[in-house]
């Protein structure tokens, strides 16, 4: 076994011994470490400096209590997290996720990935991630506001425009960022660089909403170009029908590709003539509905429902766990 290889194995062993239950974190870290062997072969000084042991250990992992009151007067307690993983190249940066699946393992997994992702952008931002096991689904605006205010009352002592700049993620959109920003401002004064994903009236950026979906297609375009190919006339299957998928469909269509499927947790649609992103946008963004309504809406234009969706030409988005979906296939007569 090469020196680099045995060093990587020893770092993995330490993680496994220290945090045997953090399986998501382990999977993410091990996948990355396995690809770094040639770099360590070329840089024995990294092994000597025990660099990987430092890379896989967060600079700081904060866990805190988030007490809040629901509309019926009951008291609730959720868990808040902020893992400030690595600030070697810039202030900590990474989203906040509100979802029942959030725990330290998941936040460490996402925070570790964020270090390398942020570095790849070429911009001076370090890696972090945070969130809570609070589930915004089914909560009133007032409940979400009270939760966000309580969450920020603690988080504010750990963040700042040159220190740590959180953003949105699953369960944290424009509404939540607004409440979080308001709570931060009340305690610390107006510093608009403390959060990103803000509304356009208080420091938000144009094209932020489109950024992930557009960026995904710019990346795909660059890859195809390097392989001597283009997006024109490609058939694309997308899993997802939220913010990223909507703008990915738009950009793919602009590139001359045909997106034939998209999906949410409730089902998927297959439209061989190309998914109409404006209909998706109307259903998901304006009406906050389910993607299966796409089939119902276009059936009025002579589209029939059948059983299966097929064909993957370019796979764009992947989910770790595939929810069981009801098949909704549509076909033009």
């Amino acid at each position, binding site marked *: 076994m090469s020196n680099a290889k045995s060093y990587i194995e020893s770092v993995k062993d330490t993680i496994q011994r220290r945090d045997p239950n953090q399986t998501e974190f382990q999977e993410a870290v091990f996948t990355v470490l396995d690809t770094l062997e040639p770099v360590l072969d070329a840089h024995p000084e990294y092994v000597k400096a025990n660099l990987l042991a430092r890379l896989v250990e967060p600079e700081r992992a904060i866990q805190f209590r988030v007490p809040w009151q629901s509309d019926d007067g009951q008291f609730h307690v959720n868990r808040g997290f902020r893992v400030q993983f690595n600030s070697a190249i810039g202030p900590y940066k990474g989203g906040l996720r509100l979802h029942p699946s959030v725990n330290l393992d998941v936040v460490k997994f996402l925070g570790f990935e964020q*270090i390398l992702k942020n570095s790849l952008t070429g911009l001076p931002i370090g890696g972090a991630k945070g969130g809570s096991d609070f589930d915004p689904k089914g909560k009133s605006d007032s409940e979400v506001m009270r939760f966000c205010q309580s969450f920020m009352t603690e988080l504010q002592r750990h963040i700042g425009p040159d220190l740590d700049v959180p953003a949105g993620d699953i369960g944290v959109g424009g509404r939540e960022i607004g409440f979080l920003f308001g709570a931060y401002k009340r305690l610390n004064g107006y510093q608009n660089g403390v959060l990103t994903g803000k509304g356009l009236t208080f420091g938000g950026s144009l094209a932020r909403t489109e950024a992930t979906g*557009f960026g995904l297609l710019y990346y795909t375009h660059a890859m195809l170009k390097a392989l001597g190919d283009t997006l024109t006339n490609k058939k694309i299957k997308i899993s997802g029908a939220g913010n990223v998928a909507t703008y990915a469909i738009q950009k793919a269509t602009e590139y001359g590709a045909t997106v034939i499927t998209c999906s949410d947790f409730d089902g998927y649609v297959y439209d061989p003539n190309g998914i109409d992103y404006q209909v998706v946008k109307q259903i998901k963004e304006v009406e906050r509905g389910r993607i299966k309504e796409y089939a119902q809406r276009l059936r009025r234009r002579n589209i029939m429902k059948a059983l299966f969706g097929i064909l993957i030409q370019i796979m764009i988005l992947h989910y770790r766990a595939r929810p069981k979906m009801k098949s909704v296939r549509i076909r033009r007569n």
Partner: protein
Amino acid sequence: MPSVPDAIATYRDNHIYYGPAKAANAGGVAVSALEMSQNSERLSWSFETVDNRLHDIMDSIFEMSEAADKKYDLKQDYQAGANIAGFEKVAEAMMAQGLV
């Protein structure tokens, strides 16, 4: 969320090119960082300015991954390329800053 390791192995076995999540979906955080730039200079850029910067950043992410792929002869393994390109910059910065 990225593909599970088994899925990635399946892509490789079937000669399917794979763009890892950390590279392909970095557009969101990239524009977040551009939002920070606008906040600190107290300006708002036009949609086209931000979109063009985003396009350049995504091109550069792929180019960096591809360069790492070539440098270490990874045979179009863009996942390893992205990991290595991201790691190299962080590693150099960490080495320069001493044992902290």
